């Protein structure tokens, strides 16, 4: 038992952090805000060249062959950097293609083809045959591209062009592109069941990793502000009303990180309680990031309430990530239905 990072993971962390800082800084969200796409094509290709989209895919499937625990470190940086673009769904989609028997598609995705994700509406269903039906929303999908739909039992890829009424609407998160759409029995172009590859479980863990990155980012932002902002002739961090919320952020960041890597390793080691830990990771990291981001806006005072400051972007991204894979309420219900952890 050892949950410290390996040298390879340290390398993933430093190289991905450097890439994001140079190529996809948070300022890109505002720069691309009025564009229809939130993706920086060059940066996306760069990420593909670094193997980001197939990092956790087995070598036999053309991947890098790393574990989910390694991907966690990449996605933690993606979360911390609020990188725009469908990173999470693209990585999961590569698996659906590969394990669904579409090697060429998997290769294309690994090489830079983007895949967005479906957020089910009320009564949206993925049928036993993988067909998609119901009202839905699309995150970061392109009109001529693909969308990933996931349930606990299976994951499918559908063509956005097979959906009807695809209408862009503003998203609460300025770094995310949203559409409304409908599906009536849309056949998937690729499909994989959870027993072959637990796509939703991996999605929970990677979403959790992004939320951990967000929590760590706002913790650092708050702590920095608490040290540098002077009021009443002292740094505001001397006040426990500032100091203690910062401490709570630090605790939450550690807890969320610990649970995310625990869940990832549980998956990689094939433990039977892997779903339990994955859902716990998403729920815990989600709540923790939410609380920390909201507390950060408060600590920043008026600045935290401006569009130019990053604080609100963390709140909004944390909110969007919390809606994935069923949303909090559904996830709580599923967690309670599972057998207890080992």
């Amino acid at each position, binding site marked *: 038992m050892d949950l410290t990072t390996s040298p390879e993971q340290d390398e993933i962390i430093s190289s991905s952090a450097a890439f994001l800082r140079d190529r996809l800084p948070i300022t890109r969200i505002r720069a691309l805000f009025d564009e229809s796409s939130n993706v920086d094509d060059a940066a996306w290709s760069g990420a593909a060249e670094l193997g980001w989209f197939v990092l956790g895919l087995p070598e036999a499937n053309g991947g890098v062959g790393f574990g989910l625990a390694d991907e966690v470190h990449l996605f933690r940086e993606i979360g911390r950097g609020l990188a725009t673009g469908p990173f999470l769904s693209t990585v999961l989609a590569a698996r659906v293609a590969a394990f669904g028997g579409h090697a060429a598609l998997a290769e294309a995705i690994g090489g830079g083809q983007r895949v967005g994700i479906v*957020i*089910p*509406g*009320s*009564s*949206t269903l993925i049928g036993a045959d993988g067909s998609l039906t119901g009202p839905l*929303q699309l*995150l970061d999908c392109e009109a001529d591209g693909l969308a990933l739909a996931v349930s606990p039992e299976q994951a499918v890829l559908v063509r956005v062009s097979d959906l009807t009424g695809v209408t862009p*609407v*503003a*998203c*609460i*998160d300025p770094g*995310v592109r*949203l559409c*409304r759409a409908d599906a009536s029995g849309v056949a998937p172009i690729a499909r994989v069941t959870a027993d072959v590859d637990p796509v939703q479980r991996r999605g929970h863990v990677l979403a959790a990793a992004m939320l951990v990155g967000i929590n760590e980012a706002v913790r650092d932002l708050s702590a920095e502000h608490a040290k540098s902002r*002077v*009021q*009443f*002739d002292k740094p505001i961090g001397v*006040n426990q*009303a*500032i100091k203690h919320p910062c401490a709570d952020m630090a605790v939450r960041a550690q807890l969320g990180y610990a649970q995310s890597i625990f869940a990832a390793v549980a998956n990689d080691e094939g433990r039977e309680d892997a779903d339990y830990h994955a859902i716990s990771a998403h729920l815990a990291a989600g709540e923790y990031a939410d609380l920390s981001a*909201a507390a950060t*806006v*408060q600590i920043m*005072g*008026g600045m*935290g*309430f*401006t*569009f*130019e400051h990053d604080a*609100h972007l963390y*709140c909004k991204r944390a*909110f*969007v990530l919390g*809606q994935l894979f*069923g*949303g909090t*309420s*559904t996830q709580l219900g599923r967690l309670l239905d599972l057998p207890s952890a080992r």
Partner: protein
Amino acid sequence: MDLAFSKEDNDFREEVRTWMTENAPRERRPRDLVAMREFDLAWQRKQYAAGWAGIGWPEQFGGRELPLTQQLIWYEEYARTSLPPIDARFVGLAHAGPTLMVRATPEHQAFHLPKILAGEVVWCQGFSEPEAGSDLASLKTKAIVDGDHLVVTGQKIWTSFGPVADYQELLVRTDFDVPKHKGITWVICDMKSPGIEARAIKTIEGGQEFAEVFYDEVRIPISNVVGGINNGWSVAMSTLSFERGTAFTVSQVQLSTSVERLIEMAKSRKSVNGRPVIEDEALAKKLARARADVAALRSLTYLNISRNARADQPGPEGSMLKLQDADLTKRVFKLALEVLGTRSLANPHEEDDSYWVDRHLLSYSSSIGGGTSEIQRNIIAERVLGLPR
């Protein structure tokens, strides 16, 4: 103790309600700042024409000088009719105006107060600075006396409606060599003066009502100083209790209305799993809890107004209302996102759902603006409970 309003009060409520229903602006309030100014002023002129301007202002300054209970009724009906927010009219009606009433010369009063009441001008506030937030008295925007003028250089922030305002209540430092509260001057600044630049600040829900204001050797007649040079701190504090407990009535009624609307939405909408949202008992109980807490906030408003109607000077209970209003506002509009479910991802400005998302985002400011909740807690602990500073 009674909750029943007098016949006179009930008649007043009827009258107010009728007038509001008949005169509520039919157009949507524009989002553009210039258009918003015009909309707000037009609405003020309409109230003025009908004799409703300055319901809490003394008659000697053209106000209605209504008793507190009728002010309460006015605000309750105002909120229930969903009339436009006070926004661009706030500083003039509720802060700068009342300050002028108690501290300015008759000439200033005669010049400014009627314009505020009649909806001719917009006032803004120039108090906060980037480095002077909770510690307002540490402000550094400097004013040098040059003959019969002050020459002002510096920067203000959080100036609502700054780019479209006519006048500003401006705090400047006129003496750097004395303790910080003692070198401040309160002055009327004409926002058209050369050397002023106001830049909108975009806020997290996309609004543009706040501004930064930059002053580059702006010349203001010393005759515009209110309360005397270096006496500005006491002038700025003189209006703190003008509202006498009615300040959060509109917000409180809106909270109540919002909770009821959310309950209706939860009954009529379905969640991801296809069942009515209200059947999510965890959510339903949060809505019920919100009902109880909003009821208590309203009761405290009534209690506070009852006490203030009998007291000369309102107590520090106003901080309690502000604190609880902020907390509940954040909680209720966060709850709204839960009721909306995944539909809260979308924030298209044309739909009803966007109202809730906007209000949620705006709610972040409720515990920051007008004195943070941390500062309110200090005030309550120190002034109500007598805890040491």
